[in-house]
């Protein structure tokens, strides 16, 4: 994947041990994050996030559907990630499938909460139009355009930005329907409802290289990792999901330490991301 000589490997590992990484960052510093919203006019909401050379797009599409019989008061949310072959030749054909599934599952775990819908970043009850009859189905698609490490954090940030950019059309329901008929709906193309995105968590991936862990690893640094833990944290400081990558085992106390570091880092990341999203929204309105 990444071809590195022995010397380069030592340089990366030594730099991380001394808290000065190859691009001059400290261990717990993110690369500058750039957010652009409304990049896809066809979607209800979209955003592009760049973290160094990592470049991802998230789009949100909403369609009217029928809620499932088991959960009549909840809309459906689906999250898929696609790794484009433009990002890396190995994503061509079925090559990116494994990574795509891994990223999709990790994002679903972090954003959608438990099976019952508790602890979800996006409130599925806000998607219901008529209980048991009509609801919005939300399709969130992530696309990896260019990959230079830390895809999961970038995708989560892009989804958060895309959802704050999303406007769901207001729906008027015709009143005179009997109980078993599918009600007639009128979709407004002028009025849009905004999402409450304050509860959506960010994902912080801590990559363990040697004895230390770093945030926002580049793909060179990722090639040297022994294991990585992706932790999603919301504004309240609660953990909303956790996924471990990389095969090497970790001591339980190290995991707990990583969780507390991630909580600390996430505060800055949430604030940074929120101000970037606000700035992107403002510049979009101007143009």
């Amino acid at each position, binding site marked *: 994947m990444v071809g590195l000589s022995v010397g380069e490997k030592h340089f990366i590992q030594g730099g991380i041990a001394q808290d000065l990484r190859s691009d001059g960052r400290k261990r717990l510093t993110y690369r500058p994050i750039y957010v652009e919203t409304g990049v896809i006019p066809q979607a209800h909401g979209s955003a592009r996030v760049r973290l160094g050379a990592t470049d991802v797009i998230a789009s949100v599409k909403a369609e009217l559907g029928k809620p499932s019989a088991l959960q009549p008061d909840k809309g459906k949310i689906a999250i898929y990630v696609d790794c484009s072959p433009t990002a890396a030749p190995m994503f061509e054909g079925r090559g990116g499938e*494994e990574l795509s*599934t*891994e990223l999709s*599952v990790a994002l679903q*775990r972090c954003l*959608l*909460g*438990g*099976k*019952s819908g*508790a*602890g979800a970043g996006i409130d599925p009850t806000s998607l219901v139009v008529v209980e048991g009859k009509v609801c919005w189905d939300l399709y969130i698609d992530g696309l990896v355009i260019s990959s230079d490490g830390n895809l999961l954090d970038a995708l989560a940030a892009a989804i958060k930005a895309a959802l704050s950019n999303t406007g769901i059309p207001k729906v008027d329901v015709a009143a005179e329907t009997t109980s078993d008929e599918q009600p007639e709906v009128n979709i407004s193309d002028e009025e849009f409802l905004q999402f409450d995105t304050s509860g959506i968590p960010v994902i912080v991936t801590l990559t363990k290289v040697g004895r230390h862990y770093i945030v926002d690893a580049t793909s060179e640094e990722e090639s040297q990792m022994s*294991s990585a*833990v992706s932790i999603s944290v*919301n504004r309240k*400081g*609660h*953990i*909303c*999901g*956790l*996924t*471990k*990558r*990389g*095969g*090497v*085992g*970790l*001591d*339980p106390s190290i*995991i*707990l330490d990583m*969780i*507390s570091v991630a*909580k600390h880092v996430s505060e800055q990341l949430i604030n940074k991301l929120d101000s970037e999203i606000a700035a992107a929204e403002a510049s979009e309105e101007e143009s």
Partner: protein
Amino acid sequence: MAAKPGSAPVTYSPNLGQKTRPPIFKDNDLDWVRPDGRGFHQCRPAFFRTGAVNSASGSAYAELGSTKVIVSVFGPRESKKAMMYSDTGRLNCNVSYTTFATPVRGQGSDHKEFSSMLHKALEGAIMLETFPKTTVDVFALVLESGGSDLPVVISCASLALADAGIMMYDLVAAVSVSCLGKNLVIDPVLEEESYQDGSLMLTCMPSRYEVTQLTFTGEWSTPEINEAMQLCLDACNKLGKVMRTCLKEAASASQE
């Protein structure tokens, strides 16, 4: 495949008696019982048996309640020609469901991520450098899905690997807990899993005290995480012992 009359299935419920802090999650709730009548911190009896498949290098069968899993291990054998040279061995994992494993036919295909989760849980325990240029295939088949499928698959797979004589640092034991309201139930059954507010799965190597895989869903605070992890680690430790006994029994039976 029934248990031998002499060997009663053993359980591996954790105990949390030694703690001084009052636990956040109670062991029982007066107005609520689990579908199978267990205590909240009580595991299902675990039954393991190695050598379930003759043609495989190693295999194991596990039965926890109604969850029934069979895992066979093939290899180490030559890697496919298309694969590049590698000086460490490769691990190839595949988890599949029988069409009749789930209440609705063919629902098992929802679990595409299980194969990669199994891979990640096991690769940290296997000494891959002991079989360069070759591949070990681990095929798991869920015969009946009764909840906590993935933890059972992982534990069973590590037993099958041990049966195949693949060098490992330690056996891998896996346990999951579900959070239902204010309660934490260990080793959830299918019904509990479908209503859970959050879940945690932990796989670890008990004698090395190392976590190989950990996943969370739902919202958790740090003290809750602490307690759930302790519960899982303790249960993993005991499950590891159950698995070890199974291996010893198989070894002593073959000597006779």
